[in-house]
């Protein structure tokens, strides 16, 4: 069934869009990532103009994140206190990011920079997570065969515990300073505004490795703050560029919200290490594809951009 999108001004298959939304929704529920780094390239591939794809995927991420975060709320796996602190940093960061983005645009080559950002960050995050996940899986196996329970030791000597303004995060079982979470939120906010994504794929590992939060809480908390960051992005695009296509968004999010529910169920059945390895593989795949696009000669060297109408 073909459907004509009013803002994108193209006609696409409705079931294809429902499927895409569903796929990304499953991933979003499983890993706590918004899926922006997946859906945006997929939409390019279907033939949606890039500006519309970026803006509309932000809108659809709001929907799938709301759906997934509610599922996590019921399981009490959202650290609201930590989420709010991350969000404070995140919103300041995304304002800063928009400023940086516009500056880069004025000196040209912003496309390339965004792409390089993707390759570098997806590459680093993916590789780190993959190695760590494999090690953790191996440790768990060894512990199981030797019959010795794995004692989870928390390191209290790290830099992270030297900051003042300590606060207790009951849901995460942490007693740390508020400065590291604010900085993490700020950094992710900047990146997400520049790269046009929710930033879950950076936020999730940052929470696990930098803040030492338990994996189960990380996903819900990450989703919680993604909702607000992407809502902010959607409004910014709708007001400044008029590139949010609500028909496209509805098709994607109908698939997305259902997918997110299924994804949350799947995620809860998998072990933390398995989740990490799977997410790492996915991140590395996308990174590899983007890197190849930069390295291989494209089939069509020329591209068309419409000059402000």
């Amino acid at each position, binding site marked *: 069934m073909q459907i004509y999108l009013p803002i994108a001004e*193209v006609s696409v298959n409705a079931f294809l869009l429902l499927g895409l939304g569903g796929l990304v929704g499953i991933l979003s529920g499983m890993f706590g990532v918004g899926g922006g780094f997946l859906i945006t390239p997929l939409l390019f591939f279907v033939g949606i103009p890039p500006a519309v794809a970026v803006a509309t995927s932000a809108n659809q991420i709001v929907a799938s994140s709301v759906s997934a975060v509610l599922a996590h709320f019921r399981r009490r796996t959202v650290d609201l206190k930590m989420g709010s602190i991350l969000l404070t940093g995140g919103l300041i960061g995304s304002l800063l990011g928009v400023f940086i983005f516009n500056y880069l645009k004025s000196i040209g080559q912003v496309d390339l920079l965004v792409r390089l950002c993707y390759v570098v960050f997806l590459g680093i995050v993916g590789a780190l997570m993959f190695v760590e996940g494999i090690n953790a899986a191996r440790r768990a196996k060894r512990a199981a065969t030797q019959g010795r329970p794995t004692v989870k030791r928390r390191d209290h000597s790290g830099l992270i515990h030297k900051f003042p303004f300590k606060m207790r995060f009951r849901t995460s079982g942490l007693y740390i300073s508020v400065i590291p979470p604010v900085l993490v939120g700020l950094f992710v906010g900047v990146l997400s505004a520049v790269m046009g994504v929710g930033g879950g794929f950076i936020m999730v590992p940052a929470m696990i490795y930098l803040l030492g939060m338990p994996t189960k809480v990380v996903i819900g908390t990450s989703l919680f703050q993604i909702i607000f960051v992407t809502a902010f992005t959607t409004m910014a695009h709708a007001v400044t560029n008029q590139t949010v296509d609500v028909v496209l968004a509805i098709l994607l999010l109908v698939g997305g919200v259902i997918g997110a529910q299924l994804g949350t169920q799947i995620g809860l059945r998998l072990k933390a290490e398995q989740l990490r390895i799977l997410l790492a593989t996915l991140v590395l795949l996308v990174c590899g594809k983007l890197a190849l696009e930069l390295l291989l000669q494209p089939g069509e060297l020329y591209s068309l951009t419409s000059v402000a109408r």
Partner: protein
Amino acid sequence: MMMRWLLIFLLLPCLVQAEEVVLGLSRDRVAITTSFDGSDILIFGAVKREAPIAEVPLGVVITVAGPSAPVLVRRKSREFGIWVNTDAVEVDLAPSFYVVASTGPIREVLSNVEDLRHKISIDRAIRSVGAPDTIRDSRNFTNALIRIRRNDDLYQESEGKVVLAEQTLFRTSVKLPANLVEGDYTIRTFLTREGRVVSKHETTIDVRKVGLERWLYTLAQEQAMLYGLMSLAIAALAGWLASAAFAMLRR
């Protein structure tokens, strides 16, 4: 004296316009609805003439052009091992959609001079004035624009697709693709003899979004804030509904 006047009177129609186009369209407007998936337009017409048919065979060229806009054409090249957009040329005006249909090979029906004057073939319909000094091959950029749009069926050349019967009746059909830009589409009809344009006719067809499409588009343009909030509300509601539905299912 009387004879001279009569002669002028008889010759006058030949000099001004001996043949005239009478044109019909299968539809005079195209409505873009939610289920719009391209559309075919049948263009048909007749040649109205007072004098007997001339010896030289008649040629018919029909063009359909969408609204024109400037387009920025970028080219990638390899820098430090990666492919980067380096050069860019702005094409001043290019139609978003363009079809040239003719009764035969375009160069046989239409001379180069007439093509230049009336801007009929795709090459001529695109206006590209100047490229930056750093780019020597601006022609390649215009060609790339034509190639890309041709691959998308946005530019079509249908040589021999206009059927002409008895030197008088002609018809052709034009396929409008699904990725259409709204606006006024101009349909021009040229009658030619020996490559020279002897008569021309111009009309427009209205391509517009209607109903829901129209409403959403207008809202997005004029009430951007409201539109953004509406999109967010829909997103949040859909998320909540799905979550609630699944919670019910599990119980």
